[in-house]
C-alpha cells in the first residue's frame, strides 16, 4: 500500500444535482487517484474513481499545443471581434467560474445560455409563468409525509435522492419511510418503482391531461369520464390520489425530464406547479425539479442574480433580454445566428440537433473542459481545465438552491475554469475599451457619420 495517503472528510460529489456532501475520500497522493469514496452511490464512485490526470496540453489552438497565455489572447480576440457570440454550458463548473462567464458575455454583448435550456429550461419558464412553491430538502426530510415523483427515475439518475426524501427519519417523521407515502407516476415501471407505495402508470405524452384532471378534481370540478381512455389512469385512482394530496400534512412533488422534455414542455411543468399551488388551499404542498448536472442549479442562480433571468439571456443591446426560443443555444445555432461560441464544461457537439452541430463546426469555438470531448476536438481554442470538486474548490448549488462548498482531493496541473475565464474577462475588457476609445464617439455620433463599428 502506498504511503502517501490522504483522507478528505465531508467532501462533495458534484456528479448530479443531489450534491451529496458527506463523502469520505481516500486519495493516493503519489498516483493522484481517489482509491475509495465512502458513502458515494454507484454514479459517485465512478465519478471519483475514473478521475485521472490526463496527459494532454493545457491549451491548444486548432489542435496545436500553445501556452495558456497565447490561447487566452486568441480566445479574447475571437470573442471581442464577434458580432453574435454565444456562451453556453456552465452547469459543470463552480459558481465562481459562472460569474466570470456572465461578466464576459456582458462585456462582449453576447448571448448567455446554460444547459438548463435543454433540461429543466421549460420549468424555468413555468416558474416565471405560474410561480413555485418551494422548499429545501431538509424540510422534506423533517416534514414530508407524501412524496410524489413524476416523470423521473431517481433510482438510476439520482441514486441517493431517496436519502433526502424517502428514507430519512425527520423531526415530524420519526419512522422514516414507514411514515411516508411514496407515489411514483411514470410511463413505465422503472427501477425506482419498488420504492413506491403507489405506482401510477400513465400513457406516454398524457402528463398534461392527467395533471389537468387532478387540478380539476382538487378544485371540485367535473372531469371527462373518458379520462381513463385518455390517460390510462382510472378515475378511482385519480380520486384516491387527490384525497391523499388534500389530506397529507406536507406534500412534495418532485418532477423530472419526463415532464419537461415531452410534448407540452413548459406547460407540463407549469401544470404541476399550478397543482402544487392549488393544493396549498388544503395543506402545505411544494414542488421541485430533480436537477441533473452537479451545478446546474448554481448556473440558474448565478445567471438569475446577475442578469435577472435564468437562461437564454441576450446582451446585444447592452442590457439583458430574455427570450427562450430565440436566445437559447439550440436556436441561435440552428438558425445560424451565432458567429463565435464560448463553451464551458459542456459538449453540445455530441448531443445537439444536427443543424446546430453543423453550424457549430463553421464558427470559431472556444472550449473549456476537463476531458477531451467532441466539442473540444472541433474547437478553435481548447483549454484543458481542472475538475471542480476533485481538483478545485468553489461553491455549487444543490437542486434545492442550497449552496455547498467544495473540498478538493488533490491538485491538478491544469488551471481551473475560473482562472481561465477571469483572464479572458480581463483581456476582452481591455480590447473592448480600447476599441471604444479608438472610436472616440458615442453611438449617436457613430450613426450620424454612418461609420460601421
Amino acid at each position, binding site marked *: 500500500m502506498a504511503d502517501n495517503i490522504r483522507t478528505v472528510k465531508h467532501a462533495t460529489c458534484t456528479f448530479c444535482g443531489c450534491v451529496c456532501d458527506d463523502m469520505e475520500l481516500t486519495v493516493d497522493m503519489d498516483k493522484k487517484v481517489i482509491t475509495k469514496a465512502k458513502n458515494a452511490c454507484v454514479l459517485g464512485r465512478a465519478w471519483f474513481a475514473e478521475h485521472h490526470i490526463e496527459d494532454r496540453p493545457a491549451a491548444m489552438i486548432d489542435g496545436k499545443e500553445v501556452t495558456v497565455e497565447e490561447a487566452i489572447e486568441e480566445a479574447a480576440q475571437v470573442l471581442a471581434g464577434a*458580432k453574435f457570440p454565444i456562451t453556453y454550458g456552465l452547469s459543470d463548473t463552480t459558481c465562481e467560474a459562472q460569474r466570470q462567464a456572465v461578466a464576459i458575455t456582458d462585456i462582449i454583448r453576447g448571448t448567455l445560455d446554460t444547459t438548463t435550456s435543454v433540461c429543466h429550461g421549460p420549468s424555468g419558464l413555468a416558474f416565471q409563468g405560474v410561480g413555485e412553491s418551494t422548499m429545501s430538502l431538509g424540510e422534506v426530510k423533517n416534514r414530508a409525509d407524501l412524496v410524489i415523483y413524476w416523470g423521473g427515475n431517481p433510482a438510476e439518475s439520482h441514486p441517493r435522492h431517496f436519502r433526502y426524501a424517502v428514507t430519512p427519519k425527520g423531526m415530524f417523521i420519526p419512522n422514516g419511510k414507514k411514515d411516508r407515502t411514496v407515489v411514483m407516476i411514470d410511463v413505465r415501471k422503472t427501477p425506482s418503482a419498488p420504492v413506491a407505495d403507489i405506482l401510477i402508470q400513465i400513457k406516454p405524452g398524457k402528463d398534461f391531461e392527467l395533471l389537468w384532471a387532478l387540478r*380539476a378534481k382538487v378544485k371540485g370540478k367535473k372531469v371527462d369520464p373518458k379520462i381513463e381512455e385518455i*390517460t390510462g389512469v382510472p378515475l378511482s385512482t385519480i380520486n384516491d390520489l387527490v384525497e391523499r394530496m388534500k389530506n397529507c400534512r406536507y406534500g412534495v412533488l418532485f418532477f423530472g425530464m419526463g415532464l419537461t422534455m415531452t410534448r407540452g414542455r413548459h406547460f407540463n411543468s407549469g401544470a404541476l406547479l399550478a397543482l402544487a399551488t392549488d393544493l396549498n388551499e388544503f395543506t402545505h404542498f411544494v414542488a421541485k425539479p430533480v436537477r441533473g448536472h452537479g451545478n446546474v442549479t448554481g448556473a440558474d442562480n448565478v445567471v438569475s442574480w446577475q442578469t435577472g433571468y435564468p437562461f437564454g439571456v441576450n446582451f446585444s443591446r447592452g442590457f439583458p433580454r430574455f427570450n427562450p426560443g430565440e436566445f437559447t443555444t439550440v436556436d441561435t445555432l440552428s438558425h445560424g445566428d451565432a458567429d463565435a461560441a464560448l463553451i464551458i464544461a459542456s459538449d453540445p457537439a455530441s448531443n445537439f440537433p444536427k443543424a446546430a452541430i453543423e453550424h457549430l463546426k463553421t464558427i470559431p469555438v472556444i472550449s473549456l473542459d476537463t476531458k477531451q470531448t467532441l466539442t473540444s476536438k472541433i474547437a478553435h481554442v481548447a483549454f484543458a481545465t481542472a475538475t471542480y470538486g476533485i481538483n478545485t474548490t468553489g461553491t455549487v448549488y444543490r437542486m434545492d438552491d442550497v449552496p455547498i462548498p467544495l473540498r478538493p482531493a488533490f491538485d491538478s496541473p491544469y488551471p481551473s475554469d475560473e482562472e481561465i475565464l477571469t483572464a479572458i474577462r480581463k483581456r476582452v475588457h481591455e480590447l473592448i475599451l480600447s476599441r471604444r476609445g479608438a472610436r472616440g464617439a458615442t453611438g449617436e455620433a457613430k450613426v450620424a457619420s*454612418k461609420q460601421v463599428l
Partner: protein
Amino acid sequence: MSLELSMHTPPEVPLEAELLTPDRTVGMDSNAVSGIAIQHGNRQVTVGDFFTVKGKGEGELHLEGDLSRVKHLGSGMSSGSLYIHGDVGEHLGAGMSGGKIVIDGNAGSWVGPEMSGGRIIIKGDAKHLVGSAYRGSAVGITGGEIYIHGNVKNETGHGMRNGLIVAGGNSGDFTGVNMLAGTIIVLGEMGIRSGAGMKRGTIISMHPTEMLPTFSYNCDFNPIFLRLMLRALQSQNFNIEDKQITGKYQRWSGDSVEMNRGEILIFRE
C-alpha cells in the same frame, strides 16, 4: 410616392430594425432613411449598410429581399402600411397599435406579440407564438387582427385579451392557451390541448380535435356572429365552404380549472 427598400447585403447575424416603420419614416427622404440606426448583432449600424433606399416617406413602406433574419420589423407602429415582399424574421409588428402589415412570404415566431390594434396579413406560414404574450407577461394581444393564410405552430394566441387571429391552415398545440378573451379561428386541423387554462374567449375549428378532460360539451348550434365572420373571411380569400357557414357547430365550454367561461366551437360535418 412610397418608400422602397431593397436589401443589397444579406446580414451575417440577425438585424433588429424596430425603427423601420411607415409612421416613423413619414417626411423622411432616402438619405434620412439610410441613416436610421439598426442593430446588427451587437453593433449599431445604419439602414444604408444593408438596404438601398428609394422614394420618400409618406406612410407606405415596401421592403424587398430575404428578410428572414430581420427582426422586430413594424414594432410599435401606429399607422401607415408596411409591405414585405418575401420572408420575414421574428417579432413582426410587436406591440403595434395601428396600421397594416402585409407579408407575401412566411413569417418567423412571435407575430404581433402584445399588439393592441392594427392588422397583420401573412400570405404564407408563421411559426410559434402568433399573437401571444411575451414570456413573463400574463396578457397577450389586447386588440387588432392577425390573418395568416398558411399554418401556424404552437401557442397561437397565448394569453390573448381581445382581437382576432385567423389561421387558414393548421395550428399547433396549445392554441389559445391561457386566453382571457378574443377570437381564434383555425380553418385547418388544430393541435392538442387547445384552450388550456382559458378564462373566456372563443376558439373555432373546422375539424374535430382532441379536447382536454376539463372541457364539457354543451350543445350544437349555428351562431349568427360566426356566419358574418366567415363571410367576411371568405371575401378575404380564405377557403371557406358554404356548409361551414350554414352548418352546425359543437359548443364545448371550459376550462373548468379556470372560470369555465371560454368556448370551443367545432364544425360538425
